[in-house]
């Protein structure tokens, strides 16, 4: 007889849904910005973290100070794409339907590419209702090269730029004579491998590539067999573009095997990774990234991080580029007194902006790629003012490359829409 409970349960859900429709409307007409990243499912940790940071930035810099454009608040609207290209399509339609014209998106280059194509198609078919893609983290070079678009802006250094700096650094490490490259079997993993090999061949022809391995993404339960190969190859260092659990498992296996070599990574920090690797990863895990975590150059930025930690004790500021992106967009809005994506895009082109770290960063107009200093940091517990995952360990920057030296050529031939 309990059968009868269920339909009521379903009804209840529907009523909840209908009821909650009412919540999102607000009278002051805020500037609404979409944040589209995985907020549920296997990749939720990183997406949720980004959402919190963006929301906090909006509140900290603007909403608590009377808003932007003469008193309008910024509202960040989360859209959960589950890191799936298909779901991204669905959420994009939702964004258009709710007239969200600026979409922040960062996780997975596959998703970024899909979104890019979708937005281009949409903008072409619906003049006057264009949508702007703010890419804060997807680093596939193609997005500002072949597939560059007027409606896409990238606020992170792309893989080739990062690898350029990374290989410069490796080139200086005399002790490294052989290199093992391992990555997830998909476009970014392959890009890391291809670019590293060609750059190392130029900068340090004597470094032997003793391994170039791909493994299926998210399918490997135990990395030890791979590590066995790394050990027996006699590599002096490892480069990997792995992220998430694949990163942690790989690093753990390398450390467990007793191998004491540096691991050069893109995503091996925060969101539980630093805590999990802890002391074992000390001085082994290297990260290439923009914006240092330690030492922090300005009080302004320290205050910001402290404020964030105070509001979110269990979280970290992992993506300062979200702050830069938001601030630059607001600056563009204020300059043009408009929230129209076309106006914002024009204002963002070649914008120079001074960040919380007192660094001037530049959005190149040719391909919509940001340029700022890049840093190579190492996981350690020495000299750490701001740790990660409350673990006592954090990233300490060892090597800096100023913005102007990170600039590389682009093959982008941008088609600019005319109004």
């Amino acid at each position, binding site marked *: 007889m309990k059968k009868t409970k269920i339909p009521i349960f379903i009804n209840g859900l529907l009523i909840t849904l209908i009821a909650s429709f009412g919540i999102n409307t607000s009278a002051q007409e805020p500037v609404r910005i979409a944040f589209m990243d995985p907020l549920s499912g296997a990749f939720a940790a990183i997406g949720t973290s980004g959402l919190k940071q963006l929301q906090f930035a909006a509140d900290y810099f603007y909403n608590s100070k009377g808003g932007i454009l003469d008193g309008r608040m910024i509202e960040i609207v989360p859209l959960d794409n589950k890191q799936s290209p298909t779901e991204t399509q669905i959420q994009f339609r939702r964004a258009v339907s709710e007239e969200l014209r600026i979409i922040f998106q960062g996780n997975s280059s596959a998703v970024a590419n899909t979104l890019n194509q979708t937005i281009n198609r949409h903008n072409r078919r619906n003049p006057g209702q264009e949508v702007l893609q703010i890419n804060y983290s997807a680093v596939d070079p193609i997005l500002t090269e072949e597939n560059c678009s007027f409606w896409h802006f990238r606020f992170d250094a792309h893989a080739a730029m990062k690898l350029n700096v990374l290989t410069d650094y490796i080139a200086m490490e005399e002790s490294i004579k052989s290199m093992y490259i391992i990555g997830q079997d998909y476009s970014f993993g392959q890009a890391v491998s291809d670019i590293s090999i060609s750059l190392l061949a130029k900068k340090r022809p004597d470094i032997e590539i003793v391994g170039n391995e791909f493994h299926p993404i998210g399918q490997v339960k135990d990395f*030890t*067999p791979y590590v066995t190969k790394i050990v027996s190859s006699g590599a002096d260092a490892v480069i990997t573009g792995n992220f998430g659990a694949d990163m942690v498992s790989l690093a753990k296996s390398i450390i467990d095997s007793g191998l004491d070599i540096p691991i050069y990574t893109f995503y091996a920090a925060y969101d539980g990774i630093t805590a999990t690797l802890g002391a074992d990863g000390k001085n082994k895990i290297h990260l290439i990234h923009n914006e240092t975590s330690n030492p922090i150059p300005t009080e302004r930025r320290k205050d910001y991080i402290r404020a964030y930690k105070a509001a979110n004790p269990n979280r970290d500021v992992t993506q300062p580029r979200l702050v830069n992106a938001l601030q630059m967009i607001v600056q563009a809005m204020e300059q043009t007194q408009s929230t129209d994506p076309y106006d914002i895009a024009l204002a963002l082109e070649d914008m120079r902006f001074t960040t919380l770290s007192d660094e001037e960063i530049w959005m190149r107009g040719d391909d919509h790629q940001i340029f700022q200093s890049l840093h190579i940091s190492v996981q350690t517990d020495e000299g750490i003012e701001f740790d990660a995952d409350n673990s006592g360990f954090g990233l300490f920057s060892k090597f800096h490359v100023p913005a102007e030296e990170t600039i590389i050529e682009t093959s982008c031939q941008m088609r600019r829409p005319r109004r």
Partner: protein
Amino acid sequence: MLEIFIFATLNGLVTGLLLFMLASGLTLIFSMMGVLNFAHASFYMLGAYFAYSVSLYFGFWMGLIFAPLIVGVLGAVVERYGLRRVHQSGHVAELVFTFGLAFLIEEAVQFFWGPDTKNYQAPDILDFPLFTLFGQEFSAYRGFMIGISLSIFITLYHILTRSRIGIIIQAAITHPNTVANLGHNVPLIFMGVFGVGTALAGLAGVIAGPVLTTFPGMSIALGSIVFVIVVIGGLGSLAGAFIASLLIGLLQSYAIASDVGMPELLNLLGLEFERSHPLNDLWTLNLPRIAPILPFLLLVLVLIFRPTGLLGKREE
């Protein structure tokens, strides 16, 4: 070469034995109850998480003891109040139930423990290299994993062949209908077997968690692999499950260790293709890249040519 071979074998053993701990419980459940328990690997994940939580307060060893117990009790409860009820609606219903359960457990884990990786560490006592061979360390913890798995196998084997309950269970595996006619309390046996099976999965999670990383996705890839093992090994055969587990563990490990693939094969045949060839993806394929899908290839081949599995005695 030799060192790679030796370590590949050791790695294959660790994986294989770990898989067996999952597969042994699943074989019992699958064979006796006919339930395709999709949530089996989720209990493995629960094992790791419970052990992590226990270890925060009482240390690793307490986790090793209590986490499997908690998981086993949970499993028994699921059988008693979930599966038994669904059983009346047939096997598909049971399957969808376990499907949903797997989904729910993953979400629940994220709800209670959060979506990020957990810092679940092996005990310090086992944090030393067991031996070093050709400059490569084999950690004591991995030796411990092999030890635990082997002792589970031996204990299980003894219980099943020597004790009364074991004989009833064996009979129930091969002739599920007869046992009920002999007057045994089949629902109780089912609950017990489900509880023990999930506890074994939990134990596997406890010992795997520290090395294979404790995170909400840890069960995803494993769930279907364990099925593959049970089916390849043959329904109703614990020995088959054991062989299939080792087979798959070693197969994957060797595949990763090997460096051969299509390029080598083509070389051997004296063929060469341009990078622009439409099948370039195929010509550049190598074994390590396809290692994780080899079990599925094996599954399809076994089922086509020997539907009862390697050591299976009965169909369906």
